[in-house]
């Protein structure tokens, strides 16, 4: 008769290995790999002229993160240069913030060339984590102004785009796209479905703000006009207030839905009170029984000790 072979599987050890691998997997899941080669990165350079006429040059640095997604690179040193005739001259080094942005305030001393162009170079150099990268930008400074009549029932506004000539005169800039927005609490909202208008030969773009824009308690709206990511001028913006919005009264009942309403429904309150009232009444009944047990000692009856 053939003897049965007893194959022993070390179950305990197998289970311990599973537990250990579970913990290891948890520790390694989502962890970034370290000790690899320098990472690829990319710089996106732009010029930004704000409505308050503050000017900045921004470098947005992104890097290849886990799962192949491009994510902002925090803490990267960016060297900004200006391109002179003699070659690049360093302006300043700026470290990127947690959003991967390094902002260089526009240097007053920055000079433009004969064509009126500013030339900026941004570089990641000799970084221990990232490979060397360089990005260049050439731009001119444009001026953007809004003209309008507050009493105009058509809510028409004219954006005028000019650049300063070498003689100091303002020269209208034609065929430049201007986008019109309305300021909202957390940013700007396009003022209409068609909100981009090109300037004519006089450098003017005319836009009519719709009459149904909500303007808060006072009916005031803040118009925002922007030249967005223009190859020559970068981003330029300007703002102006106009009394063209609809007056909106304060919402007295902002959540008229489901249980997320401001006041709990009566039925819910009753249900909770009944359930938890019942539970806590029971608890107090038990406390009362304990009190009674304690009081029993005073009228101890020896004959009753044995159950």
């Amino acid at each position: 008769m053939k003897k049965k072979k007893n194959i022993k599987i070390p179950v305990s050890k197998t289970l311990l290995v599973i537990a250990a691998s579970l913990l290891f997997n948890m520790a390694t899941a989502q962890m970034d790999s370290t000790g690899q080669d320098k990472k690829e990165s990319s710089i996106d350079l732009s010029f930004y002229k704000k409505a308050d006429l503050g000017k900045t040059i921004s470098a947005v640095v992104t890097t290849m993160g886990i799962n192949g997604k491009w994510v902002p690179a925090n803490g990267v040193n960016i060297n900004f240069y200006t391109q002179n005739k003699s070659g690049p001259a360093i302006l300043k080094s700026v470290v990127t913030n947690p959003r991967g942005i390094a902002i260089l305030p526009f240097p007053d001393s920055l000079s433009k060339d004969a064509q009126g162009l500013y030339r900026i170079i941004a570089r990641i150099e000799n970084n221990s984590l990232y490979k060397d990268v360089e990005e260049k930008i050439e731009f001119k400074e444009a001026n953007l102004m809004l003209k309008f009549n507050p009493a105009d029932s058509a809510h028409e506004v004219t954006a005028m785009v000019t650049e300063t000539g070498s003689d100091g005169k303002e020269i209208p800039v034609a065929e430049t796209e201007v986008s019109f927005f309305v300021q909202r609490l957390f940013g700007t909202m396009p003022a209409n479905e068609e909100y981009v208008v090109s300037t004519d030969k006089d450098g003017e773009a005319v836009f009519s703000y719709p009459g149904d824009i909500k303007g808060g308690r006072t009916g005031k709206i803040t118009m925002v006009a922007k030249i967005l990511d223009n190859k020559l001028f970068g981003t330029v913006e300007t703002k102006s207030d106009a009394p063209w919005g609809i007056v909106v009264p304060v919402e007295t009942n902002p959540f008229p839905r489901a249980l997320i309403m401001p006041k709990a429904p009566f039925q819910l309150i009753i249900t909770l009170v009944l359930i938890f009232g019942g539970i806590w009444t029971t608890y107090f009944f038990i406390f009362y029984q304990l009190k009674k047990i304690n009081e029993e000692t005073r009228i101890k009856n020896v004959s009753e000790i044995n159950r």
Partner: protein
Amino acid sequence: MQQDRQLINNEIEILREDCLRPTNKWSGTAKLWIGFLLAVLGWGIYAYVHQLRYGLGVTAMRNYVSWGLYITTFVFFIGISHSGTLVSAILRITKQEWRRPITRSAELLTWVSLFWGGIMPIIDLGRPGRIFNIVIFGRVQSPLVWDVICIFSYFVGSTIFLFLPMIPDMALCRDRLKNTKTRFNKFKKWLYTKMAVGWQGTKTQWHRLEKSMTIMTIIIIPIAVSVHTVVSYIFAMTLRTGWNSTVFGPYFVAGALYSGSAGVILGMFVFRKLYKLEKYITPKHFDLMGRIVLALTLIYAYMNLNEYWIPAYKMATAEGHLLRDLFSGSYSKVFWTLQFGTVLLPIIIMSFPKGRRPNLLAIVCVIIVIGAWAKRYIIIVPTMLHPHTPIQHVPADWATYFPNWVEWSVTLGALAGMLLIITLFSKLFPMMAVWEVEEGIKINHEKELAAKIREKMEAEINFQPAVKPG
């Protein structure tokens, strides 16, 4: 008859000695163990103070993953707290005689895990003083408020449920503690006296105690179920991908029972070994508890299937991203280890009688408990990393999460705190309900006696001489 009574008394005396021995002896190992737990707890407190001082920014949690290790551990502890309800209340209510030696450890585990479970969200708050805002500004229609009310009510209920069966044992400890020369013994005497609430074992006292226990046994079950259901509401009542599910309530309850009962087996295993209770907590107890855990694991596996299979069949856009990450992405290793290693494998092992033997069952339960904790992590963290609005224009590390040393230290501190309370409890109070086991011994003897009498009577009937007809 007299001999039988003597036999029972001897057995009861041995039982009392066995149960009270650990409360009178503090071995060097026990002191070392307590010292180790105090050190870990101390380190956890240090990390928590560091967090309090510098804010939650010292943890790995950021805007997207704002519920990390702390809330994972909170849900895990609340899950473990179902152990007492299941083992003690359900077995009591169904009059399972074998429950007697294991109810105390189950009830204690419930109480301790609830205590620490309740602390974890406060740790997660960053500014713990804000916990009172839920009382001052809490809205009745908020699941968070329901959660606080339910957990607090369950905690009070569990305290009563643990305390009531301890009363006769406290009286026993009080009466047996003769040596009150040392300060510590004086303290123990005082504690036992207070906790015995004047217990003398009179008929009326027994009547009141049994009535109270019956009421608590009935009421604690729905409270326990409501607690984990409401804990699940914190997740399910949001519109988040992965949490927007209608099965979350029963899914969480099933998961809690599965991990809680495994926790009870671990408690049984440890105290049986440490305090030499093999005579009372027998392989039969492990076998029966193993069957319960097996049944609960099967229910949990079924709930798991529903939780993932239905959305996976549809692969709706947002759910799809999360599920892909779980099935084949960065969390797939953990996910599949959990499904196969901590659900399927325990089912296979526990299906065989050998798999329900104490040692192997204890290892299976360790796996289940670790798996239950990791499952909570998988429910919380990947979901938070898949919000409806994409993660963009934020620092790279906001798009990932792994707990850092502060979170690990605080969490391990909480775990050490939990084990410390259990250890101290076991050094002060008997870990088995002495009177309940005594009652079991008496019932067994009565049954044996009844069987003997029946046998005797049957024998007498059988030996009656046959009467000749005519």
